[in-house]
């Protein structure tokens, strides 16, 4: 039968590879989830299959909420991520638009310089930045991260937005200009409403990076309860060579949730924002 042949061909060329890929991608999350719901003793008991839950427990989540400052870490991470993302997006919109549309001497050089800044690894930057943060008296405050995260976020977001702005036909802006719009008015009334997918992808990129960032959060803001989720999780749930696996995984599950939630809502826009400008029309 022709139909069954088509299905067989599709099964082997499409569904099977996709399923395998899906298993490969989702397995870490599955592992994280089941470990977080297992009692500690079951984790070390080789009699049980490690891939299933023998005995369901919420003790790891309770431990997280009762014995650590997880709620405070969550609050800290949210504040830092949201404010840094907004700050970076605002700066990147102006930079991206200027690089995409304005002609001024050294614009190419400036664009390249911004991109090169993105290539400097944080492991090289953290010591000089520590000096700056200390001089400004911002150690162990939210501002320490809110001001340092954009050093990594703005270059990438600017380039991403620059690519997106270039996909918007110039003619729209020229018509607006003919009707008397200023550059700023064009940016806010024409360009930004047309760039929602680009803004969303830049925003999600910035937020994810802030949410997961470890080194700066460790160096600039990790005293007392001023910890973000990544730093708090490893400093309070790893004691010497002993890891509290259940609670670690519970923290990872809860820490991944906001990012997964955001992605699930905006995934379409995110993809279109990232791929805009990839093909010139």
């Amino acid at each position: 039968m022709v139909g069954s042949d088509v299905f067989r061909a599709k099964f082997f060329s499409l569904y099977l590879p996709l399923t395998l890929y899906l298993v490969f991608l989702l397995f870490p999350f599955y592992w994280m989830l089941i470990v977080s719901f297992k009692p500690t003793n079951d984790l070390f008991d080789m009699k049980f299959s490690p891939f299933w839950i023998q005995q369901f427990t919420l003790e790891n989540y309770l431990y997280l909420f009762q014995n650590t400052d997880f709620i405070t870490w969550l609050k800290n991470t949210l504040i830092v991520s949201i404010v840094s993302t907004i700050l970076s997006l605002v700066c990147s919109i102006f930079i991206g638009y200027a690089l995409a549309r304005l002609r001024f001497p050294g614009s190419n050089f400036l664009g390249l310089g911004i991109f090169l800044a993105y290539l400097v690894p944080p492991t090289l930057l953290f010591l000089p930045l520590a000096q700056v943060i200390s001089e400004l008296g911002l150690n162990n405050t939210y501002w320490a991260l809110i001001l340092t995260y954009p050093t990594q976020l703005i270059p990438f977001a600017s380039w991403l937005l620059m690519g997106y702005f270039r996909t918007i036909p110039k003619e729209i802006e020229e018509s607006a200009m003919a009707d008397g719009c200023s550059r700023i008015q064009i940016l806010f009334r024409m360009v930004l409403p047309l760039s929602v997918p680009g803004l969303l992808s830049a925003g999600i990129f910035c937020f994810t990076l802030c949410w997961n960032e470890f080194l700066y959060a460790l160096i600039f803001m990790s005293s007392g309860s001023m910890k973000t989720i990544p730093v708090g999780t490893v400093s309070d749930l790893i004691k010497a060579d002993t890891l509290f696996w259940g609670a670690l995984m519970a923290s990872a599950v809860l820490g991944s949730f906001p990012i997964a939630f955001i992605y699930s809502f905006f995934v379409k826009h995110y993809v279109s924002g990232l791929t805009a400008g990839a093909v010139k029309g």
Partner: protein
Amino acid sequence: MKSHPKKGKERVKLSRRDFLMAGAAGLGVAAMGGLLPDMLLAAKAPAFKKGTKLSILQGSYFIAPSQDLYKRQAQEWGEANGVEMSCDFLNWPDLQPKIAASVQAGGYDIVELWGGWNYLYKDNLVELGDIAEAFGKRNGGWERYVELSYKVGNRCLGVPHGYSNGSMAYRISWFKEAGCPNAEDGNKIDLTWDEYFAIGKKCKANGHPFGQALGHSTGDPPGYCYPYMWAHGAMEVEKDGKTIAFNKPQFVEGMRKFIEGWKDAYDETGTSWDDSNNNRAYLSGQISSTFNGSSIYFTAKKNQPEIAADTHHILIPKGPAGRFYWLDTRTFAILKNSKNVPAAKEYLKWWFEDKQFGDWWRSQEGYMLQPVKKYYTDPVWFKDPKMAPFREQPKYGQNMGFAGPPNEKAAMAWSKYIVVDTFAKAVQGGDAKQAIEWGAEQLKRIYGR
């Protein structure tokens, strides 16, 4: 003393002599009752200017109550002296970048330094010889491993407080099954590396291999590989700190035996293990013996008492050149850029007094090795015979970089895992000579600078 009967609300009058006599008597009673020091402490006005803050950074404790005790002690001193104290405890691998940032830009007054870091930051640390020497002298002198490493040249840049190290944990029943004599009492077992591998071979044949982390991890891999290297006559460098002494025939022979032992006795996935993997493997019954701190035993006592009952420790095996432990001194040091050096010094002086240090050290129940000889005979060591092998470790302790000084070059070789990688390359490639030649070349690049 004359009596002064009260008349209504008439004030009681004291002559100057009465006052002095009464005061002297009161002080005498208080002193006899042991109250004097407390009274003086309580009566003492805050010794430091208002708003003084001390920030302390150290690695997180495996024994959680000891961490809480340290915080309470710091708080107690802070309240008595009008100083606001804050203590931070970080995951071990994260300690060094945080300290590096503090050295550069401030943030902490007192930091915990691990082996070699006092050399690394020697220009940024306050001299603490007076506190350290008084502490050492009062407690019977330093243990050998501390003596060898707590100073940078003649300068004492931190006060040593011990070291947490590993030993060989093993399953009693599986060692018995493999025919190990005295398996039920690790204190009666004294093995050579060859004998240890031979037991491992039998254990593996019975389905219970040994396990050893050989990945890039700060504790167990170097804690195992350095002693094996020293026990087979090799060192990173000679005493001059320059001449590489790694590629020695005896070590090549020892490495051949190790390659064989790895195949016959060990779980061969250990090349990718870190400090935590062998804990997990041991507690899940996957392996029968491993080099580890007492954390395995303590965790088992808490969560898996049947495994704790079946666990004992033995001293690390000896080789042709003897028995060695890789021990480094951990110190509490004060950063020069601290704005509160006098308060930090006073705090450390107080904390290293017998009461505070003794309480803290004892609360670790043997997890922390003693830095001073007095604690070798402390009752803590006799509470649980299974912990006794840890008590003996300081006798065999050598520092990284031995026979040279435990300086910044030794710290660099350690942080690049050259010795550990030599072992990993040997078992992966199967060529002992080639792996050791590679290691010697890498060491030359560091020590030859």
